[in-house]
């Protein structure tokens, strides 16, 4: 174990301290709340109750869903754009450049590299002769643009910060207001980034791809999306997330900096759902949040239920009672440190096994149609079990499936928590025997004058 730790620690160190990876991870965090709110609007427009649309239409009139869809479209159909902005900002923060200028330059270089003049096409697919218009295309600023956004934000802002540090800036005389001086300071670095984007655009116009973004989608994004939707990749991710915890390391914080493909799949799933098309993916974020882990990482809700119901150690029972309500909302910090899970080899085994079992079973359950695919509706991860399954898929069968997995989790956790329970009981008995007094320490009649 110690040897393994020596191999894993430097790896985790690189993943958590590398500034580019931090920026990528945090860049997604910036758009997360917007995607959740957008999802809620879409969920209202498509609430999973039969007759919902007709019932609301009778009050608000036909076409009411368009109001809600306008909000959802503005969030998740713009995930690429939001990623360029968020990651650009985080990159500038990590590399100590002007943050808002960094975000802006990432966005502008992103726009330079995509088609912005389009030919008009009729609904039938027929091209309208001579009808050309300019604008941003949701196909390019949406989830299909996420990888390109990451490239523009990381390389663009890195170059921007590099030029800043080299002092390639126009310096204003003293007395010029700071806002004016800052905007001039950003002039040369911005010109450099935009100039490079300009050249890249020209180079790609001579290739079969036509645009850099189409190149990125073809050679990078599409293959990675395929890989990201496989059981193998997700099983490895699930394993690493829980395994790192065993050494006290926040696994998701390490892994999310490289395994962010779930964000792309989720956004694309939502767009397909909104359009009423077949749902393309299994491994979306709601899938991993709501069918793999109940009660937080390690699927510890099962553990907490056992702590309350079958454990006999006073400590474990008490901690279980305190943790059960937070547990239903996916919060397990009290037991991570209080039981503890961290550095505890006995609990490590089910802590790794249960999420893995949930992942594999839910994958096959989805594949075989026992539960429907998640719609991509991105609910907060604190949504309680039962509700989350129903809202994420639109089917009550998914709720039943969640409860089924919770019960299976009880069975796996049982022998391990009983082992720990017996150990703690023995310790409690030993402590009671050793001290002549109660093992509870009371501060009530403490004499402070003795000090």
């Amino acid at each position: 174990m110690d040897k393994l730790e020596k191999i894993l620690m430097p790896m985790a160190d690189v993943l958590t301290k590398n500034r580019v990876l931090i920026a990528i991870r945090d860049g997604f965090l910036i758009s997360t709340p917007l995607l959740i709110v957008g999802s809620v609007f879409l969920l209202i427009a498509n609430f999973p109750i039969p007759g919902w649309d007709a019932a609301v239409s009778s009050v608000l009139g036909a076409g009411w869903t368009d109001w809600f869809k306008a909000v959802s479209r503005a969030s998740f159909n713009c995930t690429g754009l939001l990623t360029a902005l968020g990651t650009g900002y985080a990159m500038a923060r990590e590399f100590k450049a002007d943050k808002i200028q960094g975000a802006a330059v990432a966005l502008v270089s992103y726009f330079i590299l995509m088609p912005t003049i389009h030919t008009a096409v009729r609904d039938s697919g027929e091209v309208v002769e001579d009808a050309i218009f300019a604008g941003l295309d949701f196909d390019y600023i949406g989830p299909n643009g996420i990888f390109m956004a990451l490239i523009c934000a990381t390389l663009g802002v890195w170059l921007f910060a590099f030029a800043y540090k080299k002092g390639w800036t126009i310096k204003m005389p003293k007395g010029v207001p700071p806002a004016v001086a800052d905007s001039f300071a950003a002039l040369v670095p911005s010109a450099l980034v935009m100039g490079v984007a300009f050249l890249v655009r020209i180079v790609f116009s001579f290739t079969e791809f036509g645009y850099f973004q189409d190149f990125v989608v073809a050679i990078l994004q599409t293959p990675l999306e395929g890989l990201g939707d496989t059981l193998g990749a997700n099983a490895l991710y699930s394993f690493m997330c829980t395994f790192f915890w065993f050494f006290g390391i926040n696994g998701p914080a390490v892994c999310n900096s490289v395994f962010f493909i779930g964000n792309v799949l989720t956004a694309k799933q939502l767009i397909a759902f909104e359009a009423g098309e077949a749902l393309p993916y299994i491994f979306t974020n709601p899938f991993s949040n709501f069918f793999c882990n109940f009660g937080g990482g390690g699927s510890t809700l099962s553990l907490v239920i056992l702590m309350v119901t079958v454990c006999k150690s006073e400590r474990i029972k008490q901690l279980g009672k305190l943790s059960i309500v937070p547990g239903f909302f996916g919060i397990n910090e009290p037991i991570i440190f209080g039981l503890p899970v961290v550095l505890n080899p006995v609990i490590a085994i089910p802590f790794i096994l249960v999420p893995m079992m949930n992942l594999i079973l839910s994958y096959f359950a989805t594949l075989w149609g026992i539960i429907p695919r998640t719609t991509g509706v991105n609910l907060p991860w604190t949504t309680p079990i039962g509700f989350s399954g129903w809202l994420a898929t639109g089917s009550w069968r998914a709720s039943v499936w969640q409860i089924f997995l919770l019960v299976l989790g009880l069975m796996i956790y049982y022998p391990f928590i009983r082992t720990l329970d017996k150990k703690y009981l023995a310790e409690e008995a030993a402590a009671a025997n050793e001290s002549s007094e109660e093992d509870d320490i009371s501060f009530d009649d403490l004499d402070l004058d003795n000090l």
Partner: protein
Amino acid sequence: MKVMMIFDQTQAGLGGKESPDLPMGGKAMGIGSCEMFTRFLDQQGGKVIATLYCGDGTFLAEPELNAKKFAAMAKKFNPDVVICGPCFNYANYGIMAAKSAEAISELTNIPAFAIMSQECEKAIETYKDKVTILKMPKKGGIGLNESLSAMCEYAKMLVDKKDTAEFLEKHAY
């Protein structure tokens, strides 16, 4: 080596951020997160004879009095050393631990120290010149095993009255 621990509600296994109002109490044994470092303590021939705990909110309502209470209880149990922590990046717990370690060192003959991550800036800034504060990672950070091992090693060095200057150079703030 008889060790006494001072924990907040989370490390004691008596709650989380939602229960800062946990009253002061204790158990005549190792509880909660002690399980994380039992093996390192074993290596040093140490055993937790008592764990004192207090919600961070309860403590900070009357820090002077509560630190004194911890000191009085330490005197009563007379351990060889008192460890205030590990606090991770729980900032209020950091203050409680450093303040308690200071009171115990001043008011009793029992050596005491605190251990927390660099995020507990206020506690480190205020107390690092008054009490020993060892380094450790934040929650979920890298190097927890190493720092807990160092914590137990340092406790043993204090009890054996060894020269700690070189050790502290590397492991303390």
